[in-house]
């Protein structure tokens, strides 16, 4: 049993900073691991298996990233027998319906549009963390 942690896959520094600040504001206590693209994210998940550490509580996934974008990495996670149980929260700038449907079809657990106001971001983060930490029951890795 390792520590609780979440993974954020986001290439944009500003967005990383904002999410980090928001999480600090709500006094989120678990660890936060930042990955810059899909490849880094997958590499992190692979190492988690090898080190027999816990899976993340959830993955906050941006769609537009270099090297391997969010859609591709979402597809890989959700078609991998070991990873598919990990909750993936798509964190995107678009509310385009075809994109939303595509992500849910691939197996996304939630689709969230990046808020435009700081207080909304804080509220959103609070709600997500509360839901996946306190309300939803997670799969324990043995």
């Amino acid at each position, binding site marked *: 049993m390792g520590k609780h942690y979440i993974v954020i896959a986001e290439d944009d520094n500003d*967005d990383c900073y*904002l999410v980090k600040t928001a999480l600090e504001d709500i006094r989120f206590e678990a660890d936060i691991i930042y990955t810059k693209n899909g490849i880094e994210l997958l590499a992190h998940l692979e190492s988690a298996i090898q080190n027999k550490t816990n899976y993340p509580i959830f993955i906050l996934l941006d769609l537009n990233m270099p090297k391997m974008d969010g859609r591709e990495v979402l597809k890989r996670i959700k078609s991998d027998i070991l990873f598919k149980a990990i909750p993936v929260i798509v964190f995107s*700038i678009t509310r385009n319906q075809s994109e939303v449907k595509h992500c849910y079809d691939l197996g996304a657990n939630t689709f969230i549009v990046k808020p*435009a106001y*700081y*207080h909304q*971001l804080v509220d959103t983060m609070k709600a997500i963390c509360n839901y996946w930490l306190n309300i939803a029951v997670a799969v324990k890795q043995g």
Partner: protein
Amino acid sequence: MEFNYHFRLVYIAAAISITILIIFGVIYIQKSRNQVQYIDEVEHTYKVLSVIGECEKYLVEAETNQRGYLLTHKDQFKTDLESAVSNIDSSLNELGFLTADNPGQKIYFTELKKYIQARLMVMKDNLSLKADDPDYYGNLLKEIFLMDHCKMYMAKMQGLEEGLLKIRQREKNKYQQVNLTFFKATFITACIICVISVGIFFRELGMRLAIQQKLRGKISELSRSKEELEQITFAASHDLQEPMRKVRILSTMIVKKLSTKLPVEEMQVINRINDVTEQMHGLLNDLVLYTNLVNPNENYVHVNLHDLMRSAYHKAFKREDIAIRIAGKLPVIKGSPLQLETLFIHLFDNASKFRSSHRDLVIDINYELKSVKDSKWYWDDQLIDHYHEITISDNGIGFDLQYNEKIFGLFQRLHSQTAFAGKGIGLSVVRRVMTNHKGYVVALGNKNNGASFILVFPAV
């Protein structure tokens, strides 16, 4: 225009040259026929002359043979005489046939025939006579007389025929000459006209090709700048949204974190920044909305405008109860339900926004199916007979008719920002949706006396 004018010249030149050629051809055929006729006549005359000559020859031959017989009483002369006589007969027949069409010659011929026949009778008589017959001498005299007459008439016929020959020869030569000149003239004229027509034609063709080239250049220039413009609008609307969002979220973060710590004045500045970014965000959103309408990749389906208008009414006015009077049931057309609903929502929003403070808002909707024939709209060579005309009128504050184009412009506003909310995109969207559906929208209005929007769709 100028092109058509020049090309009309080519047509006219071609028509003239063809007409001239036809006229020349007809005249030429006529002249040739005349010439052939004269040639025939000359030949005819020659033939008559030769037959007369033959006749004379046979006559002389007959006489010679008769004399020979009378002198020698050899039967050889008698047979020769008989063959000469039969030759005379056939020659006379031919001559009679040849001269039948000439009254003068006919008279001479009758006389000639009479004398020749008489002469032949005498000749026959003579054969049976002995030299000491008393009739012999008388017959001799008669013979001479008859022979003289024969010769006289032959000479007369020859004279007449020669006279004709002279005339006919002259005519024939004249026509031959004229025909040659005429042919030359025709040929040269036709050539000149042809050269001129071809010249004009090629000049026009050259000009057309040059203009075509120019147009092609312009088209590629246009499509290039269109592409660039599309890229710019796409960038402006989509790529600017992200930084915009960040500015908003960062400035609201400052407000949230520092609102209690910052002095009032600095706080106000930050709030102003927030307002401006808010405004800019709205503009960008509208721009995205609008640019998405410029090249929509939507499949058009059959849309019931009546139902669409109803649902738009509820979306636009929410729970407000606005009087709406509808004359005629709106038609079913082929189009995009999403776009058309947006169109009605914007029109209702517009009516709602610019309502008069002195009276309750009433919206009138009229629908008519009209014939294209007496239409004042321009229908871009579409094969349609009818069009749908939907008029949506309100009793709001209206607008000055001189602005009836301006109100459709992107971000154009007739009122100050504070008087009426909105960024001025609604009617641009309306116009864009109409353009996407190959229709038109026109606004009519009076200041303080309501506005009307006329939507026309082609009825396919």
